[in-house]
């Protein structure tokens, strides 16, 4: 293509062929970022978008701006954008250092400064790139600047070699750069250096290119494991972990970071804003849906709002999201048992920790009585709920003083489900997260699965079914039928969220090793059990042998007695005794003698003929 054919402006440093939208990495995107931009960008300004941003973000910038310009380094990307947005957007292809100095009132570089140079550009380090950015902004500009965190948990736990993580972008090692900020404070200091003082930052938790959760830095630093901000960040990280091959489970590190107040320091990236703080300290995309929840501190927790509709008031008016997802190819099941219903999200959520956090602590401490008491209270609470449609998740339900409160999960059952099945679904999800995450607990391996969920259900006040005999090795226990529907609901929820509840479905290295070790341990224990059974059989054999010997001894004694008895019966003494005994029975000797005499005579007569 000759320059004459280009439909966009081109400055030095453009790339062709190349695309920042269709490679391994896409443009920064997501409804969370869109909601934030909608909140913070001033109206009627001259705006520059720097780097690849998705169309939904461009739309909101264009809508807010008097005039919008966008710089991308790829010519083909620039052409596509120009075609899509027409006169609403001036598109420039080229590198940031190829731009003439300008004074844009708003500069949006949410993708950061890693994709603003071409392979023909000078080797500008991050600091120099920021200088180049400042050169096109007015001193009082509103700047939105993203920065990937080299010290993020996802980076630290990424099992790929550093040189294999950045697709084809890394023709120079961009990330090995001493000038590159590696903390939110350093990022703000750099902005201050180029004249943007008073900026503030959000910790951004993303999956692939989509920002899923934004936490104001101070909110991220203050939150602790199980609290709403930490929970939303963790859910975003778990979503990210589905796409990034990890060395160890992300949840464990994130929990420790939150406990240390370091969640903001270990976020995948930051977003700095050189404007007054945004309206909300928390922006989060609901898992499995595009709705954005925003949360603000309230007296006893968080007040929740959304970009879609009023919360809590639309209960029962469930969105037919399952069908929408199925139509878009996102979800396989058109008749999913779990559907999205924003009406299920309450307008406020207590500031406490999740029930799951508490349950995991009890399980790790092997404190079954504590676990049992909490499960009993959960059962009572679940049965007392007005609506049994909410799919209970212990990683969402919040401990609220002596009671509990539903969290921000908007997933409900598509049809009527029994309270037992909904409760079983909650316990299944907890089961998968406990066992799949190789967390410490006191239950033996043969209980894991149906029996364990049934046991927890029993702790929650649901009577266990009568046991059934096993007629074959694979005969399922009675608990299998009891918890089957709950399992289906839990699986449907995990599918809807897009995050496997069981971490072993996308194993990190440690989980894979732990799985292997668990299998080895199972073999070890089974061998021990066989040994124990063999020994028990040995004990039993000895006992049988002892009894057999006793029987043999007794039989010999009987035989001996019988032999003596037989010998006695054939003896003359016995015959004499027999005669005497018979004689003793004769009542009339004279009569007996007469009979005997007659009988002898008859015998003699017969013999003589």
């Amino acid at each position, binding site marked *: 293509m000759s320059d004459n054919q280009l439909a966009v402006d081109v400055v030095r440093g453009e790339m062709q062929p190349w695309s920042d939208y269709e490679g391994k990495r896409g443009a920064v995107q997501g409804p969370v970022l869109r909601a934030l931009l909608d909140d913070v960008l001033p109206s009627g300004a001259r705006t520059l978008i720097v780097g690849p941003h998705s169309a939904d973000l461009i739309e909101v910038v264009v809508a807010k701006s008097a005039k919008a310009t966008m710089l991308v380094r790829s010519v083909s990307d620039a052409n596509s954008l120009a075609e899509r947005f027409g006169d609403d957007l001036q598109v420039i292809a080229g590198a940031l250092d190829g731009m003439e100095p300008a004074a844009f009132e708003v500069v949006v570089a949410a993708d950061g400064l890693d994709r603003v140079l071409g392979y023909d550009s000078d080797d500008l380090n991050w600091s120099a790139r920021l200088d180049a950015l400042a050169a096109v902004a007015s001193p009082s500009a509103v700047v939105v600047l993203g920065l990937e965190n080299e010290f993020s948990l996802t980076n630290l736990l990424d099992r790929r070699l550093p040189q294999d993580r950045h697709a084809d972008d890394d023709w120079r090692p961009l990330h090995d750069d001493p000038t590159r900020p590696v903390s939110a404070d350093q990022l703000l200091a750099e902005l201050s250096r180029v004249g943007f003082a008073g900026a503030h930052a959000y910790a951004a938790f993303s999956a692939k290119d989509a920002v899923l959760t934004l936490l104001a830095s101070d909110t991220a630093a203050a939150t602790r494991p199980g609290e709403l901000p930490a929970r939303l960040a963790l859910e975003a990280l778990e979503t990210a972990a589905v796409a990034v091959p990890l060395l160890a489970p992300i949840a464990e590190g994130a929990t420790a970071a939150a406990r240390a107040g370091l969640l903001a320091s270990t976020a995948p990236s930051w977003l700095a804003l050189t404007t007054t703080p945004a309206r909300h300290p928390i922006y989060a995309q609901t898992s499995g849906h595009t709705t954005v929840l925003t949360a603000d501190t309230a007296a006893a927790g968080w007040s929740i709002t959304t970009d879609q509709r009023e919360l809590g008031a639309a209960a029962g008016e469930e969105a037919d999201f399952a069908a929408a997802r199925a139509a878009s190819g996102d979800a396989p099941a058109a008749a999913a048992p779990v559907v999205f219903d924003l009406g299920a999200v309450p307008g406020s959520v207590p500031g406490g920790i999740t029930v799951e956090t508490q349950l995991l602590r009890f399980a790790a401490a*092997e404190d079954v009585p504590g676990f049992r008491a909490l499960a009993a209270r959960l059962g009572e609470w679940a049965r007392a709920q007005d609506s049994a449609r909410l799919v209970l998740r212990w990683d969402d339900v919040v401990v609220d003083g002596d009671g509990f409160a539903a969290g921000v999960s908007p997933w409900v059952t598509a049809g009527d489900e029994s309270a037992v099945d909904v409760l079983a679904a909650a316990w299944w999800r907890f089961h998968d997260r406990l066992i799949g995450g190789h967390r410490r607990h006191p239950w033996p391996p043969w209980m894991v699965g149906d029996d364990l969920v*049934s046991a927890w259900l029993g702790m929650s006040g649901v009577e*266990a079914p009568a*046991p059934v005999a096993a007629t074959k090795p694979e005969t399922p226990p009675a608990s299998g039928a009891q918890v089957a529907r709950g399992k289906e609901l839990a699986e449907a929820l995990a599918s809807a969220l897009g995050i496997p509840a069981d971490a072993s479905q996308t194993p990190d290295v440690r989980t894979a090793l732990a799985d292997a070790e668990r299998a080895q341990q199972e073999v070890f224990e089974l*061998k021990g*059990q066989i040994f124990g059974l063999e020994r028990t059989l040995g004990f039993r054999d000895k006992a049988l042998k*002892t009894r057999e010997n006793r029987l043999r001894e007794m039989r010999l004694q009987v035989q001996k007695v019988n032999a003596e008895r037989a010998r006695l019966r054939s003896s003359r003494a016995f015959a004499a005794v027999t005669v005497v005994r018979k004689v003793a029975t004769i009542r009339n000797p004279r009569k007996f003698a007469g009979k005997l005499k007659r009988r002898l005579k008859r015998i003699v007569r017969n013999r003589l003929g």
Partner: protein
Amino acid sequence: MHHHNHYYGQAHILARYAGLDDQAPPRLRGYLQHGWNIADGWNPVHEFFDGAWRFTWSDAPRRRGHALGRRNYHSIGAPWLYLLDLEPELGAVPEEEREGTLWFLFHGWEGGKIQGDHKRLIDEIRETEPGPVTFSLYYTEYERPEIRKSYEDAGFRVVSFGRRGFSYEGTDPRFLYKQLTELRKHKRVAANRLSTAIFYGIAAGCEPAVYGDPMEMEGENPLFGGQSRIARLWPEMLGKEIDLAAARATTDLELGVPWMLPPAELRMLFDWRERV
């Protein structure tokens, strides 16, 4: 799985509680603690098969076992507690009719006999106990005429609850039933060492006392600290007059009241499923 599980008919009680045949209790997939001790529930040299699960009465033995490098514990509460639940009336008499003291001599076992001054102990018991004394001897002492006679001559009623058995042979499955019957008749329970029987007695409503020559057992292994550690850990359980509320609280913990399981959970935990 292990013949110790049948000791004192404990497996039989648990099987009954779980709704199964208590004449021939099913194999229990692991080791069941059969007596209170200051270690992990078993004697220091007890052998376990690889990967075995250990079912303790309470959490403290689990913690101590963990420190010994052992894993796979699950606390379930003492079978005695399940017996109390199954037999709320067995041997019970009106509270005002309970009298005397059921006195337990620290007993030896088949592999070790106790040595001590029985005469001196008898004198101390006479001086201490306000009412009639029933003396419980394990059969290893009960069948030693010199020991048994010394207590009978002292005017004590001497009883024995039978044998715990060995290798599935000779176990008296009513052992603990008999013990419970006797305890519920008595006002006090006493022993010369803090031991299982004291905890059983307190759980059965007796006032406890622990005093007298603790005696020594042949081959006794002091690995876990012996009597002095008991004195440091449970001072509230020692003496001739013991604070009952404190003793009951300790008893609940040591017997594992909070750890008791419902029948269905017990069946799952022990892998007690009928296989035909």
